[in-house]
């Protein structure tokens, strides 16, 4: 049903002066009807590429050089487009896959493309929505759904077309633990059905849905092995950059400089967006210098809003924010950026420069910091980017791009770091890199404020602050708050 034999693939080089790199090297497996296979690999290992080749999208729409055999339901996908609906693909980025005005239109779209007679479409839409628990949001805009709902909708839209083979690219990717649990539950029902399934992931919970697993590392694949066996060999998963279990995490040794001035102080901060939606209702918080604080809470609790007050991206509607004892009112974000370094969600989106060097130097120059060249060189060296200094960041892999964003932040060398969900979608290697750097910063006396859904990360903090509906509902040592 699903066959790959000695499959090789290389994307076209990004420009005449750049080398072509192989994304898949000699991938071979055979899946019979109704079987399931998990493909485990770190970010950039070729998981998405494999899915796109098997779905007949690559190289057809992307260009590139392919060799070997890829067959789906008897169709040679490298030579011809299989009939619509043979293969279903759940993309890693579900949001882009959803392009209709309402949830039910989204599911109907694929059925319309299949040429399903209109009187039958309604019932099939209904069935798919019911199966993935989306009936109560059927008239909402897909764009307004939560991450977990978006993934389930994308899954429903693909499943409704009754594909013979279903490819799931990183089905738990980019989700918080709540979303992961939702999608995992939906996938469990699928894996018990008779559909032929291939899923890529770096998470053991997802791999466990399939009886066999192959491991991809830099495009090269192992042969399919029983999943239990693969998961037992933790050392190998760590080595390939897939996992980074908490027991290996570095100690977050505190180095608190005695000081009476708190790094951050908020007094009765209220904030409402211009559309009237109130996000913070009287938050008071004092964070001493050198403390490591994790901010937790459900989506919409006001965590990101709170963080944006530290460098003046948002200004309180009422109340006061002090950074190192000075009121932020009347200080620009540019001035505050010298004291507060900020890492946003999906930081790779902010990259713009023609070279990695320029990218890292941007903030240093904008803030007119002393020893600009030295700062940039050190930051590049710290994240092993010196070799890429003259490369455009846009053509690097996501993993390396994230390293560039960390280097850009490190070069500013700020006494406070505010990180908004830095752990979303990180594989083992990226976790290791982030935690090692945070441990270093902490040893250097830097104050850390991290918004996170990952409780294991929150447990390493000195203090956990829980928000709900714009209010602090718990504040204390991790053991007290996390229970």
């Amino acid at each position: 049903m699903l066959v790959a034999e000695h499959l090789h693939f290389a994307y076209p080089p990004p420009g005449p002066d750049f080398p072509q790199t192989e994304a898949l090297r000699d991938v071979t497996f055979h899946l019979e009807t109704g079987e399931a296979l998990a493909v485990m690999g770190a970010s950039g290992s070729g998981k998405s590429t494999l899915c796109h080749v098997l779905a007949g999208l690559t190289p057809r729409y992307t260009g590139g050089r392919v060799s070997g055999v890829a067959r789906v339901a008897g169709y040679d996908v490298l030579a011809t487009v299989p009939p619509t609906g043979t293969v279903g693909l759940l993309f890693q980025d579900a949001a882009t896959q959803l392009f209709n005005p309402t949830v039910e239109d989204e599911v109907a779209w694929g059925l319309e493309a299949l040429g399903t007679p209109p009187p039958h479409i309604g019932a099939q839409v209904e069935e798919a929505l019911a199966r993935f628990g989306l009936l109560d949001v059927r008239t909402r805009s897909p764009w307004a759904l939560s991450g977990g709902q978006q993934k389930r909708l994308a899954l429903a839209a693909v499943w409704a077309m009754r594909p013979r083979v279903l490819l799931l690219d990183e089905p738990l990717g980019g989700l918080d633990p709540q979303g992961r649990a939702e999608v995992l539950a939906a996938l469990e029902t699928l894996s018990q059905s008779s559909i032929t399934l291939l899923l890529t992931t770096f998470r053991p919970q997802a791999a466990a849905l399939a009886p066999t697993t192959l491991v991809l590392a830099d495009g090269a694949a192992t042969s399919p092995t029983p999943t239990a066996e693969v998961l037992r060999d933790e050392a190998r998963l760590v080595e390939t950059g897939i996992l980074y279990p908490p027991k290996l995490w570095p100690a977050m040794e505190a180095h608190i400089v005695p000081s009476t001035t708190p790094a951050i102080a908020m007094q009765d901060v209220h904030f409402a967006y211009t559309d009237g939606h109130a996000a913070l209702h009287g938050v008071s918080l004092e964070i001493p210098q050198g403390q490591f604080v994790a901010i937790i809470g459900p989506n919409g609790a006001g965590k990101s809003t709170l963080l944006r007050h530290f460098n003046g991206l948002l200004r309180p509607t009422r109340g006061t924010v002090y950074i190192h004892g000075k009121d932020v009112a009347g200080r620009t974000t540019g001035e505050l950026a010298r004291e507060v370094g900020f890492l946003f969600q999906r930081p790779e989106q902010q990259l713009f420069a023609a070279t990695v060097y320029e990218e890292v130097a941007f903030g240093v120059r904008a803030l007119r910091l002393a020893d600009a060249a030295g700062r940039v060189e050190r930051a590049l060296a710290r994240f092993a980017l010196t070799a890429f200094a003259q490369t455009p960041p846009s053509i690097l892999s996501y993993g390396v791009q994230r390293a560039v964003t960390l280097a850009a932040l490190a070069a500013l060398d700020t006494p406070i770091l505010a990180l908004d969900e830095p752990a979303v979608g990180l594989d083992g290697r990226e976790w290791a890199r982030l935690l090692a750097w945070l441990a270093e910063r902490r040893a250097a006396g830097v104050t850390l404020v991290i918004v996170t859904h990952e409780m294991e990360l929150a447990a390493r903090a000195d203090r956990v602050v829980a928000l709900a509906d714009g209010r602090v509902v718990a504040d204390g040592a991790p053991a007290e708050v996390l229970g």
Partner: protein
Amino acid sequence: MSREVDIGRMALIALMGALIFVLTVVVRIPIPATNGYVHLGDAAITFTAYAFGPWVALFAGGMGTAMADMLGYPQWAVFSLLIHGAQGLAIGWLVQKRLNTVTVLLSVIIGAAIVVAGYFAAGTFLVGVGAATLEVLPNTLQGLSGGLVGVPLYLAVRRAYPPLEARSRRTA
């Protein structure tokens, strides 16, 4: 578009149209001299024309700006569709074959001229010659901003994102 659907080009037109819309509506750079503001919609159209040629710019430019008009100035939508479509088409056509100082200058001037003349004609029809005359100066600045921001923007994206050139060749 030909009978065979070029999905890549369709997606590109849709997204560049959305980008032109957003940069028209969201960015407002104030001009103290006229008490008005300049938006970056023309810059986005100019970029689209340079990067992807006259046809993508025609459709994305016309559609993006006409939709932007729906937020507050719906009666201008049809005119914006024509004016900015023509702007994209003309700029794209001028620089498609040869990119040198002459074609660049010409594209900037002609792009701005289409905007100024087009909105003056439409304005005479819609709001009378009075209000239309008042808009000539701001429209000149707005039209010129297309080239002044759009051309450096194109050069910067080409440096920062090398795959752009291969894409340009595919879609033009």
